[in-house]
Protein backbone atom coordinates (compact mmCIF):
# COMPACT_ATOMS: atom_id res chain seq x y z
CA UNK A 1 0.00 0.00 0.00
CA UNK A 2 1.42 3.38 -0.95
CA UNK A 3 1.49 5.87 1.95
CA UNK A 4 -0.91 8.33 0.31
CA UNK A 5 -3.70 5.87 -0.44
CA UNK A 6 -6.76 6.11 1.79
CA UNK A 7 -8.57 3.10 0.45
CA UNK A 8 -6.73 0.03 -0.67
CA UNK A 9 -8.29 -3.09 -2.13
CA UNK A 10 -6.17 -6.12 -2.80
CA UNK A 11 -6.93 -9.44 -4.50
CA UNK A 12 -10.69 -9.23 -4.04
CA UNK A 13 -12.94 -12.05 -5.13
CA UNK A 14 -16.67 -11.58 -4.83
CA UNK A 15 -19.78 -13.39 -6.07
CA UNK A 16 -23.34 -12.65 -4.91
CA UNK A 17 -24.01 -16.38 -4.72
CA UNK A 18 -21.86 -19.48 -4.97
CA UNK A 19 -23.76 -20.63 -8.04
CA UNK A 20 -23.40 -17.29 -9.80
CA UNK A 21 -20.57 -15.88 -11.88
CA UNK A 22 -18.07 -13.96 -9.75
CA UNK A 23 -18.51 -10.18 -10.07
CA UNK A 24 -15.03 -9.25 -8.85
CA UNK A 25 -12.04 -11.41 -9.76
CA UNK A 26 -8.72 -10.91 -8.03
CA UNK A 27 -9.27 -7.17 -8.17
CA UNK A 28 -6.77 -4.76 -6.65
CA UNK A 29 -6.74 -0.98 -6.64
CA UNK A 30 -5.54 2.02 -4.65
CA UNK A 31 -7.47 5.25 -4.10
CA UNK A 32 -5.10 8.20 -3.59
CA UNK A 33 -5.95 10.72 -0.85
CA UNK A 34 -7.39 14.11 -1.73
CA UNK A 35 -7.74 13.41 -5.44
CA UNK A 36 -10.64 12.73 -7.78
CA UNK A 37 -10.53 9.12 -8.93
CA UNK A 38 -12.74 7.87 -11.72
CA UNK A 39 -13.52 4.18 -12.00
CA UNK A 40 -14.25 3.77 -15.67
CA UNK A 41 -15.64 0.70 -17.34
CA UNK A 42 -18.51 -0.72 -19.36
CA UNK A 43 -21.96 -1.25 -17.85
CA UNK A 44 -22.22 -4.44 -15.84
CA UNK A 45 -18.49 -4.55 -15.20
CA UNK A 46 -18.79 -4.68 -11.42
CA UNK A 47 -18.40 -0.96 -10.66
CA UNK A 48 -21.39 -0.68 -8.32
CA UNK A 49 -20.39 -3.91 -6.57
CA UNK A 50 -16.95 -2.40 -6.10
CA UNK A 51 -18.44 0.64 -4.33
CA UNK A 52 -20.53 -1.63 -2.10
CA UNK A 53 -17.38 -3.52 -1.12
CA UNK A 54 -15.60 -0.22 -0.37
CA UNK A 55 -18.48 0.75 1.92
CA UNK A 56 -18.56 -2.64 3.62
CA UNK A 57 -22.18 -3.36 2.64
CA UNK A 58 -20.92 -6.66 1.25
CA UNK A 59 -17.78 -8.52 2.23
CA UNK A 60 -15.54 -10.09 -0.39
CA UNK A 61 -15.01 -13.84 -0.23
CA UNK A 62 -11.26 -13.30 -0.54
CA UNK A 63 -8.92 -10.33 -0.36
CA UNK A 64 -8.45 -7.33 1.90
CA UNK A 65 -10.05 -3.88 2.12
CA UNK A 66 -8.00 -1.31 4.03
CA UNK A 67 -9.45 2.06 5.01
CA UNK A 68 -6.77 4.51 6.09
CA UNK A 69 -4.46 1.57 6.62
CA UNK A 70 -6.78 -0.44 8.87
CA UNK A 71 -9.02 -3.31 7.82
CA UNK A 72 -12.47 -1.93 6.98
CA UNK A 73 -14.08 -4.57 9.18
CA UNK A 74 -12.28 -3.27 12.28
CA UNK A 75 -14.27 0.00 12.14
CA UNK A 76 -17.68 0.37 13.76
CA UNK A 77 -20.59 1.28 11.48
CA UNK A 78 -20.64 4.84 12.78
CA UNK A 79 -16.89 5.25 12.29
CA UNK A 80 -17.27 4.17 8.68
CA UNK A 81 -20.23 6.54 8.31
CA UNK A 82 -18.04 9.46 9.37
CA UNK A 83 -15.33 8.53 6.88
CA UNK A 84 -17.22 7.32 3.82
CA UNK A 85 -20.26 8.91 2.17
CA UNK A 86 -22.28 7.47 -0.69
CA UNK A 87 -24.30 9.07 -3.45
CA UNK A 88 -26.14 6.19 -5.14
CA UNK A 89 -27.09 6.26 -8.77
CA UNK A 90 -30.73 6.82 -7.93
CA UNK A 91 -32.75 6.56 -4.77
CA UNK A 92 -36.36 5.56 -4.41
CA UNK A 93 -37.69 7.48 -1.43
CA UNK A 94 -41.13 6.10 -0.59
CA UNK A 95 -42.22 8.87 1.79
CA UNK A 96 -42.28 12.54 0.91
CA UNK A 97 -39.71 13.95 3.30
CA UNK A 98 -38.86 17.57 2.63
CA UNK A 99 -35.48 18.29 1.09
CA UNK A 100 -34.24 19.69 4.41
CA UNK A 101 -35.46 16.65 6.35
CA UNK A 102 -33.78 14.36 3.86
CA UNK A 103 -30.49 16.27 3.88
CA UNK A 104 -30.47 16.23 7.71
CA UNK A 105 -30.27 12.42 7.53
CA UNK A 106 -26.63 13.00 6.58
CA UNK A 107 -25.98 13.83 10.22
CA UNK A 108 -26.90 10.37 11.46
CA UNK A 109 -23.32 9.05 11.87
CA UNK A 110 -22.88 11.80 14.48
CA UNK A 111 -26.15 11.19 16.30
CA UNK A 112 -26.83 8.53 18.90
CA UNK A 113 -29.46 5.89 18.32
CA UNK A 114 -32.10 7.92 20.18
CA UNK A 115 -30.93 11.40 19.20
CA UNK A 116 -32.62 13.83 16.83
CA UNK A 117 -30.78 16.45 14.77
CA UNK A 118 -30.41 19.80 16.51
CA UNK A 119 -29.53 23.41 15.73
CA UNK A 120 -25.89 22.67 14.81
CA UNK A 121 -26.90 19.83 12.47
CA UNK A 122 -29.42 22.10 10.85
CA UNK A 123 -26.72 24.72 10.23
CA UNK A 124 -24.44 22.17 8.58
CA UNK A 125 -27.28 20.94 6.37
CA UNK A 126 -28.15 24.52 5.38
CA UNK A 127 -24.53 25.17 4.44
CA UNK A 128 -24.46 22.07 2.24
CA UNK A 129 -27.68 23.15 0.52
CA UNK A 130 -26.35 26.68 0.08
CA UNK A 131 -23.11 25.40 -1.40
CA UNK A 132 -25.04 23.52 -4.07
CA UNK A 133 -27.41 26.44 -4.57
CA UNK A 134 -30.38 24.38 -3.37
CA UNK A 135 -31.66 26.45 -0.45
CA UNK A 136 -34.74 27.42 -2.43
CA UNK A 137 -35.75 23.74 -2.54
CA UNK A 138 -35.53 23.20 1.26
CA UNK A 139 -39.25 22.79 1.86
CA UNK A 140 -40.08 20.87 -1.32
CA UNK A 141 -40.91 17.15 -0.98
CA UNK A 142 -38.02 15.04 -2.30
CA UNK A 143 -40.51 12.86 -4.14
CA UNK A 144 -41.44 15.76 -6.40
CA UNK A 145 -37.95 16.72 -7.58
CA UNK A 146 -36.64 16.20 -11.09
CA UNK A 147 -33.91 13.62 -11.64
CA UNK A 148 -31.20 16.29 -11.74
CA UNK A 149 -32.47 18.00 -8.59
CA UNK A 150 -32.66 14.68 -6.79
CA UNK A 151 -29.06 13.90 -7.71
CA UNK A 152 -27.97 17.28 -6.33
CA UNK A 153 -30.01 16.77 -3.14
CA UNK A 154 -28.41 13.34 -2.59
CA UNK A 155 -25.04 15.05 -2.96
CA UNK A 156 -26.09 17.69 -0.41
CA UNK A 157 -27.03 14.88 1.97
CA UNK A 158 -23.59 13.33 1.49
CA UNK A 159 -21.87 16.72 2.06
CA UNK A 160 -23.83 17.10 5.30
CA UNK A 161 -22.19 13.86 6.33
CA UNK A 162 -18.80 15.65 6.21
CA UNK A 163 -16.98 12.47 5.30
CA UNK A 164 -13.39 12.53 4.13
CA UNK A 165 -14.12 10.12 1.31
CA UNK A 166 -17.08 10.47 -1.02
CA UNK A 167 -18.21 7.60 -3.24
CA UNK A 168 -20.54 8.40 -6.13
CA UNK A 169 -22.17 5.81 -8.37
CA UNK A 170 -22.59 7.07 -11.94
CA UNK A 171 -23.23 10.63 -10.74
CA UNK A 172 -23.66 12.07 -14.23
CA UNK A 173 -25.51 9.31 -16.04
CA UNK A 174 -29.01 10.78 -15.87
CA UNK A 175 -28.13 14.44 -16.07
CA UNK A 176 -28.40 17.07 -18.75
CA UNK A 177 -25.36 19.08 -19.72
CA UNK A 178 -25.81 21.87 -17.19
CA UNK A 179 -26.42 19.58 -14.21
CA UNK A 180 -23.52 17.39 -15.32
CA UNK A 181 -21.32 20.47 -15.38
CA UNK A 182 -22.46 21.50 -11.90
CA UNK A 183 -21.79 18.07 -10.37
CA UNK A 184 -18.36 17.79 -11.92
CA UNK A 185 -17.54 21.30 -10.73
CA UNK A 186 -18.58 20.41 -7.18
CA UNK A 187 -16.48 17.24 -7.25
CA UNK A 188 -13.44 19.22 -8.27
CA UNK A 189 -13.92 21.84 -5.55
CA UNK A 190 -14.41 19.08 -2.94
CA UNK A 191 -11.07 17.57 -3.93
CA UNK A 192 -9.48 21.03 -3.67
CA UNK A 193 -10.67 21.07 -0.04
CA UNK A 194 -8.98 17.74 0.65
CA UNK A 195 -11.96 15.39 0.24
CA UNK A 196 -11.12 12.17 -1.55
CA UNK A 197 -13.64 11.72 -4.35
CA UNK A 198 -14.27 8.38 -6.05
CA UNK A 199 -16.88 8.05 -8.75
CA UNK A 200 -17.83 5.34 -11.20
CA UNK A 201 -18.79 6.12 -14.74
CA UNK A 202 -19.11 4.44 -18.10
CA UNK A 203 -18.49 7.76 -19.83
CA UNK A 204 -14.82 8.62 -20.55
CA UNK A 205 -15.77 12.28 -21.01
CA UNK A 206 -16.93 12.66 -17.39
CA UNK A 207 -13.72 11.01 -16.19
CA UNK A 208 -11.52 13.24 -18.31
CA UNK A 209 -13.36 16.39 -17.26
CA UNK A 210 -12.61 16.08 -13.57
CA UNK A 211 -10.53 13.05 -12.54
CA UNK A 212 -6.82 13.19 -11.83
CA UNK A 213 -6.64 9.48 -11.31
CA UNK A 214 -8.18 6.81 -13.47
CA UNK A 215 -8.92 3.14 -12.84
CA UNK A 216 -10.15 0.95 -15.68
CA UNK A 217 -12.38 -1.97 -14.72
CA UNK A 218 -13.80 -4.69 -16.92
CA UNK A 219 -15.49 -7.94 -15.92
CA UNK A 220 -14.49 -7.51 -12.29
CA UNK A 221 -10.78 -7.00 -12.98
CA UNK A 222 -8.61 -3.90 -12.89
CA UNK A 223 -7.05 -3.39 -16.30
CA UNK A 224 -5.02 -0.32 -15.40
CA UNK A 225 -4.82 2.32 -12.67
CA UNK A 226 -2.82 5.50 -12.19
CA UNK A 227 -2.65 9.16 -13.14
CA UNK A 228 -5.14 9.94 -15.89
CA UNK A 229 -2.47 11.02 -18.37
CA UNK A 230 -0.75 7.65 -18.15
CA UNK A 231 -3.78 5.40 -18.11
CA UNK A 232 -5.84 7.08 -20.81
CA UNK A 233 -4.39 5.42 -23.88
CA UNK A 234 -6.18 4.05 -26.95
CA UNK A 235 -4.90 0.56 -26.18
CA UNK A 236 -6.22 0.64 -22.59
CA UNK A 237 -9.62 1.96 -23.65
CA UNK A 238 -9.88 -0.63 -26.40
CA UNK A 239 -9.17 -3.33 -23.84
CA UNK A 240 -11.81 -1.83 -21.51
CA UNK A 241 -14.64 -1.41 -23.98
CA UNK A 242 -13.74 -3.97 -26.62
CA UNK A 243 -14.08 -1.47 -29.45
CA UNK A 244 -11.36 0.46 -31.28
CA UNK A 245 -11.06 4.08 -30.11
CA UNK A 246 -8.93 7.06 -30.99
CA UNK A 247 -7.84 9.85 -28.65
CA UNK A 248 -7.60 13.36 -30.09
CA UNK A 249 -6.64 16.55 -28.29
CA UNK A 250 -8.97 19.47 -28.46
CA UNK A 251 -7.92 22.67 -26.70
CA UNK A 252 -5.39 20.60 -24.72
CA UNK A 253 -8.05 18.22 -23.49
CA UNK A 254 -8.16 14.60 -24.60
CA UNK A 255 -11.31 13.57 -26.42
CA UNK A 256 -12.18 9.91 -26.87
CA UNK A 257 -13.62 9.05 -30.25
CA UNK A 258 -14.99 5.75 -31.48
CA UNK A 259 -13.13 4.53 -34.55
CA UNK A 260 -15.91 4.86 -37.07
CA UNK A 261 -16.59 1.73 -39.09
CA UNK A 262 -16.02 2.29 -42.83
CA UNK A 263 -19.17 3.76 -44.40
Amino acid sequence: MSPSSVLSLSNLDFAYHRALQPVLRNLSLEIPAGAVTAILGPNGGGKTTLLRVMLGVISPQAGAVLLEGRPLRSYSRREVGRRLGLVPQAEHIPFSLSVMEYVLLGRSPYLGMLEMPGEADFRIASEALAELDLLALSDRPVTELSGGEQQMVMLARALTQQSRILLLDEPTSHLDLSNKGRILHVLRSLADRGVTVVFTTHDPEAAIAVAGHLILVREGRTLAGGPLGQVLTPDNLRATYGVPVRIEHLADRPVVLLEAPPR
Partner: protein
Amino acid sequence: MSPPKRPTRLLATLAVALLVTLGLSVFIGRYPSPYWMPPGRLQADELARQLVWSLRVPRLLTALMLGMTLSAAGMVMQMVFRNPLVEPGFLGVTHGAAFGAALCILWLRPNPVAIELAATVFGLVGMLLSYSFARRIHFGGWVLRLVLAGIAVSALFSSGTGILKYLADPLTQLPEITFWLLGGLWSVTWHDLVFVLPLVLPALVVIYLMRWRLNLLSLSDDTAFSLGSAPGRERAVLLGAAVVATAALTAVCGVIGWVGLIVPHIARRACGSNAQYALPTAMLVGGIFVVVCDDLARALLPGEIPLGILTALFGAAIFIALLTRATLRARP
Protein backbone atom coordinates in the same frame (compact mmCIF):
# COMPACT_ATOMS: atom_id res chain seq x y z
CA MET B 1 -34.27 30.08 6.26
CA SER B 2 -35.83 28.40 9.25
CA PRO B 3 -35.42 24.92 10.72
CA PRO B 4 -38.02 22.33 9.71
CA LYS B 5 -41.38 23.27 11.17
CA ARG B 6 -42.31 21.60 14.42
CA PRO B 7 -46.03 20.90 14.45
CA THR B 8 -46.22 21.83 18.15
CA ARG B 9 -49.69 23.28 17.89
CA LEU B 10 -51.05 20.25 16.05
CA LEU B 11 -49.61 17.87 18.64
CA ALA B 12 -50.90 19.97 21.54
CA THR B 13 -54.37 20.14 19.98
CA LEU B 14 -54.43 16.39 19.44
CA ALA B 15 -53.25 15.73 22.99
CA VAL B 16 -56.03 17.91 24.40
CA ALA B 17 -58.56 16.28 22.08
CA LEU B 18 -57.44 12.86 23.27
CA LEU B 19 -57.78 13.82 26.93
CA VAL B 20 -61.23 15.31 26.35
CA THR B 21 -62.29 12.20 24.44
CA LEU B 22 -61.11 9.98 27.26
CA GLY B 23 -62.84 12.14 29.85
CA LEU B 24 -66.16 12.14 28.02
CA SER B 25 -65.92 8.45 27.18
CA VAL B 26 -66.09 7.56 30.87
CA PHE B 27 -69.75 8.61 30.74
CA ILE B 28 -70.67 6.99 27.43
CA GLY B 29 -72.37 3.60 27.54
CA ARG B 30 -75.67 1.84 28.22
CA TYR B 31 -75.88 2.38 31.97
CA PRO B 32 -77.98 3.76 33.54
CA SER B 33 -79.68 4.70 30.30
CA PRO B 34 -78.50 4.50 26.67
CA TYR B 35 -75.68 6.76 25.47
CA TRP B 36 -74.90 9.03 28.42
CA MET B 37 -74.47 8.92 32.16
CA PRO B 38 -74.81 12.28 33.92
CA PRO B 39 -71.51 12.89 35.76
CA GLY B 40 -73.34 13.58 39.04
CA ARG B 41 -74.47 9.98 39.05
CA LEU B 42 -70.93 8.89 39.99
CA GLN B 43 -71.35 10.40 43.44
CA ALA B 44 -74.83 9.19 44.05
CA ASP B 45 -74.72 5.67 42.64
CA GLU B 46 -72.43 3.02 44.05
CA LEU B 47 -73.09 0.67 41.13
CA ALA B 48 -72.22 3.38 38.61
CA ARG B 49 -68.96 4.02 40.43
CA GLN B 50 -68.08 0.34 40.40
CA LEU B 51 -69.01 -0.05 36.76
CA VAL B 52 -66.91 2.91 35.71
CA TRP B 53 -63.92 1.92 37.79
CA SER B 54 -63.80 -1.81 37.19
CA LEU B 55 -65.10 -2.00 33.61
CA ARG B 56 -65.11 1.28 31.76
CA VAL B 57 -61.77 2.72 32.85
CA PRO B 58 -59.69 -0.38 32.04
CA ARG B 59 -61.62 -0.71 28.80
CA LEU B 60 -60.86 2.90 27.86
CA LEU B 61 -57.20 2.54 28.72
CA THR B 62 -57.00 -0.65 26.65
CA ALA B 63 -58.68 1.10 23.72
CA LEU B 64 -56.13 3.90 24.08
CA MET B 65 -53.22 1.42 24.13
CA LEU B 66 -54.70 -0.44 21.18
CA GLY B 67 -55.07 2.68 19.05
CA MET B 68 -51.61 3.99 19.88
CA THR B 69 -49.94 0.63 19.39
CA LEU B 70 -51.59 -0.29 16.10
CA SER B 71 -50.85 3.17 14.69
CA ALA B 72 -47.24 3.21 15.86
CA ALA B 73 -46.69 -0.37 14.69
CA GLY B 74 -48.28 0.48 11.35
CA MET B 75 -45.97 3.42 10.86
CA VAL B 76 -42.94 1.32 11.82
CA MET B 77 -43.92 -1.43 9.36
CA GLN B 78 -44.64 1.01 6.54
CA MET B 79 -41.34 2.81 6.95
CA VAL B 80 -39.18 -0.23 7.62
CA PHE B 81 -40.69 -2.08 4.65
CA ARG B 82 -40.58 1.11 2.59
CA ASN B 83 -44.15 0.50 1.54
CA PRO B 84 -47.07 2.74 2.55
CA LEU B 85 -49.62 -0.05 2.11
CA VAL B 86 -48.39 -2.34 4.86
CA GLU B 87 -50.04 -2.83 8.24
CA PRO B 88 -49.09 -4.38 11.58
CA GLY B 89 -50.75 -7.71 10.99
CA PHE B 90 -48.53 -8.16 8.05
CA LEU B 91 -45.92 -10.70 9.09
CA GLY B 92 -48.39 -13.39 10.00
CA VAL B 93 -48.88 -11.88 13.46
CA THR B 94 -52.62 -11.27 13.37
CA HIS B 95 -53.54 -14.46 11.61
CA GLY B 96 -51.21 -16.43 13.87
CA ALA B 97 -52.83 -14.90 16.95
CA ALA B 98 -56.32 -15.61 15.58
CA PHE B 99 -55.40 -19.23 14.95
CA GLY B 100 -53.96 -19.55 18.46
CA ALA B 101 -57.12 -18.14 20.01
CA ALA B 102 -59.40 -20.39 17.96
CA LEU B 103 -57.29 -23.41 18.83
CA CYS B 104 -57.53 -22.54 22.49
CA ILE B 105 -61.30 -22.01 22.37
CA LEU B 106 -61.76 -25.32 20.62
CA TRP B 107 -59.42 -27.71 22.38
CA LEU B 108 -57.93 -26.07 25.41
CA ARG B 109 -59.79 -24.32 28.12
CA PRO B 110 -61.81 -21.42 26.81
CA ASN B 111 -60.76 -19.20 29.69
CA PRO B 112 -59.57 -15.67 28.92
CA VAL B 113 -56.01 -16.00 30.20
CA ALA B 114 -55.41 -19.20 28.24
CA ILE B 115 -56.80 -17.60 25.09
CA GLU B 116 -54.58 -14.55 25.55
CA LEU B 117 -51.50 -16.66 26.08
CA ALA B 118 -52.24 -18.87 23.08
CA ALA B 119 -52.89 -15.83 20.87
CA THR B 120 -49.66 -14.09 21.92
CA VAL B 121 -47.60 -17.22 21.45
CA PHE B 122 -49.07 -17.99 18.02
CA GLY B 123 -48.74 -14.36 16.95
CA LEU B 124 -45.04 -14.56 17.68
CA VAL B 125 -44.85 -18.00 16.04
CA GLY B 126 -46.39 -16.42 12.94
CA MET B 127 -43.69 -13.79 12.87
CA LEU B 128 -40.88 -16.27 13.47
CA LEU B 129 -42.18 -18.54 10.69
CA SER B 130 -42.37 -15.59 8.29
CA TYR B 131 -38.87 -14.59 9.24
CA SER B 132 -37.36 -18.04 8.87
CA PHE B 133 -39.09 -18.63 5.51
CA ALA B 134 -37.83 -15.27 4.33
CA ARG B 135 -34.29 -16.31 5.17
CA ARG B 136 -34.65 -19.40 3.03
CA ILE B 137 -35.86 -17.56 -0.08
CA HIS B 138 -32.89 -17.04 -2.35
CA PHE B 139 -34.06 -14.29 -4.61
CA GLY B 140 -35.20 -10.70 -4.26
CA GLY B 141 -34.34 -8.14 -1.62
CA TRP B 142 -35.01 -8.49 2.06
CA VAL B 143 -38.31 -6.62 1.88
CA LEU B 144 -39.72 -8.68 -0.97
CA ARG B 145 -38.76 -11.91 0.78
CA LEU B 146 -40.44 -10.89 4.05
CA VAL B 147 -43.54 -9.76 2.18
CA LEU B 148 -43.84 -13.07 0.34
CA ALA B 149 -43.18 -15.11 3.47
CA GLY B 150 -45.68 -13.01 5.46
CA ILE B 151 -48.40 -13.51 2.85
CA ALA B 152 -47.82 -17.27 2.77
CA VAL B 153 -47.77 -17.65 6.56
CA SER B 154 -50.90 -15.50 6.96
CA ALA B 155 -52.69 -17.64 4.38
CA LEU B 156 -51.63 -20.85 6.16
CA PHE B 157 -52.91 -19.62 9.51
CA SER B 158 -56.16 -18.23 8.17
CA SER B 159 -56.92 -21.51 6.40
CA GLY B 160 -56.14 -23.25 9.69
CA THR B 161 -58.57 -20.94 11.45
CA GLY B 162 -61.12 -21.78 8.76
CA ILE B 163 -60.75 -25.48 9.49
CA LEU B 164 -61.15 -24.85 13.22
CA LYS B 165 -64.31 -22.82 12.60
CA TYR B 166 -65.66 -25.69 10.53
CA LEU B 167 -64.93 -28.14 13.36
CA ALA B 168 -66.23 -25.89 16.12
CA ASP B 169 -69.50 -26.54 17.91
CA PRO B 170 -71.86 -24.12 16.17
CA LEU B 171 -73.77 -23.35 19.37
CA THR B 172 -71.05 -22.82 21.94
CA GLN B 173 -67.64 -22.46 20.35
CA LEU B 174 -68.28 -20.91 16.96
CA PRO B 175 -69.89 -17.69 18.24
CA GLU B 176 -66.97 -17.15 20.57
CA ILE B 177 -64.41 -17.68 17.79
CA THR B 178 -66.34 -15.43 15.44
CA PHE B 179 -66.70 -12.66 17.96
CA TRP B 180 -62.99 -12.89 18.76
CA LEU B 181 -62.14 -12.69 15.07
CA LEU B 182 -64.26 -9.56 14.76
CA GLY B 183 -62.52 -8.04 17.75
CA GLY B 184 -63.85 -6.19 20.71
CA LEU B 185 -63.11 -4.86 24.18
CA TRP B 186 -66.30 -5.94 25.92
CA SER B 187 -64.56 -8.36 28.25
CA VAL B 188 -61.49 -6.32 29.11
CA THR B 189 -60.67 -5.99 32.81
CA TRP B 190 -57.80 -4.57 34.85
CA HIS B 191 -56.41 -8.06 34.74
CA ASP B 192 -56.06 -7.92 30.94
CA LEU B 193 -54.49 -4.50 31.09
CA VAL B 194 -51.91 -5.77 33.56
CA PHE B 195 -51.20 -8.69 31.22
CA VAL B 196 -50.67 -6.36 28.26
CA LEU B 197 -48.81 -3.40 29.74
CA PRO B 198 -45.41 -5.04 30.44
CA LEU B 199 -45.22 -6.01 26.77
CA VAL B 200 -46.78 -2.94 25.22
CA LEU B 201 -45.26 -0.07 27.19
CA PRO B 202 -41.56 -0.94 26.65
CA ALA B 203 -42.26 -1.56 22.97
CA LEU B 204 -43.97 1.81 22.56
CA VAL B 205 -41.15 3.57 24.39
CA VAL B 206 -38.52 1.96 22.12
CA ILE B 207 -40.45 2.91 18.99
CA TYR B 208 -41.05 6.46 20.23
CA LEU B 209 -37.42 7.03 21.14
CA MET B 210 -36.07 5.60 17.88
CA ARG B 211 -38.59 7.41 15.69
CA TRP B 212 -36.13 9.64 13.86
CA ARG B 213 -34.18 6.54 12.75
CA LEU B 214 -37.30 5.41 10.90
CA ASN B 215 -36.60 8.08 8.29
CA LEU B 216 -33.16 6.61 7.81
CA LEU B 217 -34.51 3.09 7.51
CA SER B 218 -36.98 4.15 4.84
CA LEU B 219 -34.02 4.82 2.50
CA SER B 220 -32.36 2.06 0.48
CA ASP B 221 -30.17 -0.38 2.40
CA ASP B 222 -26.96 0.89 0.82
CA THR B 223 -27.71 4.51 1.68
CA ALA B 224 -28.78 3.69 5.24
CA PHE B 225 -25.60 1.65 5.57
CA SER B 226 -23.44 4.49 4.26
CA LEU B 227 -24.97 6.77 6.90
CA GLY B 228 -23.47 4.66 9.66
CA SER B 229 -26.57 2.64 10.41
CA ALA B 230 -26.78 -1.14 10.69
CA PRO B 231 -30.11 -1.33 8.86
CA GLY B 232 -30.70 -5.02 9.46
CA ARG B 233 -30.21 -4.80 13.21
CA GLU B 234 -32.14 -1.54 13.66
CA ARG B 235 -35.04 -2.85 11.58
CA ALA B 236 -35.09 -6.02 13.68
CA VAL B 237 -35.31 -4.02 16.93
CA LEU B 238 -38.14 -1.81 15.66
CA LEU B 239 -40.05 -4.67 14.01
CA GLY B 240 -39.64 -6.82 17.11
CA ALA B 241 -41.10 -4.05 19.29
CA ALA B 242 -44.00 -3.47 16.87
CA VAL B 243 -44.80 -7.17 16.58
CA VAL B 244 -44.64 -7.98 20.29
CA ALA B 245 -46.94 -5.08 21.17
CA THR B 246 -49.37 -5.95 18.37
CA ALA B 247 -49.46 -9.63 19.32
CA ALA B 248 -50.10 -8.87 22.99
CA LEU B 249 -52.98 -6.51 22.21
CA THR B 250 -54.45 -8.80 19.57
CA ALA B 251 -54.52 -11.49 22.24
CA VAL B 252 -56.73 -9.31 24.44
CA CYS B 253 -58.78 -7.42 21.88
CA GLY B 254 -59.13 -9.84 18.99
CA VAL B 255 -58.46 -8.94 15.37
CA ILE B 256 -58.75 -5.18 14.84
CA GLY B 257 -58.01 -4.18 11.27
CA TRP B 258 -57.43 -0.97 9.35
CA VAL B 259 -56.24 1.22 12.22
CA GLY B 260 -52.58 0.43 11.56
CA LEU B 261 -52.96 1.03 7.85
CA ILE B 262 -55.01 4.19 7.81
CA VAL B 263 -53.87 6.22 10.82
CA PRO B 264 -50.24 6.61 9.66
CA HIS B 265 -51.58 7.98 6.37
CA ILE B 266 -53.74 10.51 8.18
CA ALA B 267 -50.77 11.52 10.35
CA ARG B 268 -48.50 12.02 7.35
CA ARG B 269 -51.19 14.10 5.71
CA ALA B 270 -51.50 16.27 8.77
CA CYS B 271 -47.85 16.95 9.52
CA GLY B 272 -45.60 15.57 6.78
CA SER B 273 -43.65 12.35 6.48
CA ASN B 274 -40.87 13.04 8.98
CA ALA B 275 -41.40 10.28 11.54
CA GLN B 276 -40.02 12.52 14.28
CA TYR B 277 -43.43 14.25 14.24
CA ALA B 278 -45.57 11.86 12.20
CA LEU B 279 -45.16 9.08 14.77
CA PRO B 280 -46.47 11.00 17.81
CA THR B 281 -49.24 12.43 15.61
CA ALA B 282 -50.20 8.91 14.52
CA MET B 283 -50.23 7.68 18.12
CA LEU B 284 -52.54 10.48 19.24
CA VAL B 285 -54.86 10.15 16.23
CA GLY B 286 -54.93 6.36 16.65
CA GLY B 287 -55.79 6.71 20.34
CA ILE B 288 -58.68 9.04 19.57
CA PHE B 289 -59.89 6.89 16.66
CA VAL B 290 -60.09 3.64 18.61
CA VAL B 291 -61.52 5.21 21.77
CA VAL B 292 -64.30 6.82 19.71
CA CYS B 293 -64.96 3.61 17.76
CA ASP B 294 -65.16 1.72 21.03
CA ASP B 295 -67.59 4.30 22.46
CA LEU B 296 -69.84 3.61 19.49
CA ALA B 297 -69.39 -0.14 19.82
CA ARG B 298 -70.47 0.07 23.44
CA ALA B 299 -73.27 2.60 23.32
CA LEU B 300 -74.91 2.57 19.90
CA LEU B 301 -76.98 -0.61 20.13
CA PRO B 302 -78.37 -2.57 23.08
CA GLY B 303 -75.94 -5.36 22.18
CA GLU B 304 -72.22 -4.87 21.73
CA ILE B 305 -71.06 -4.15 18.15
CA PRO B 306 -67.74 -5.90 17.43
CA LEU B 307 -65.06 -3.20 17.41
CA GLY B 308 -63.31 -4.70 14.38
CA ILE B 309 -66.41 -4.08 12.29
CA LEU B 310 -66.49 -0.39 13.20
CA THR B 311 -62.77 0.22 12.66
CA ALA B 312 -63.02 -1.54 9.30
CA LEU B 313 -66.11 0.46 8.35
CA PHE B 314 -64.68 3.87 9.24
CA GLY B 315 -61.15 2.90 8.20
CA ALA B 316 -62.23 1.79 4.76
CA ALA B 317 -64.40 4.90 4.32
CA ILE B 318 -61.48 7.16 5.22
CA PHE B 319 -59.18 5.14 3.00
CA ILE B 320 -61.47 5.61 0.01
CA ALA B 321 -61.71 9.32 0.76
CA LEU B 322 -57.91 9.59 0.90
CA LEU B 323 -57.40 7.52 -2.26
CA THR B 324 -59.81 9.55 -4.30
CA ARG B 325 -58.08 12.78 -3.37
CA ALA B 326 -55.54 13.68 -6.03
CA THR B 327 -52.82 14.59 -3.57
CA LEU B 328 -52.27 11.14 -2.09
CA ARG B 329 -48.57 10.43 -2.25
CA ALA B 330 -48.61 6.70 -1.63
CA ARG B 331 -46.27 5.05 -4.10
CA PRO B 332 -46.17 1.31 -3.51
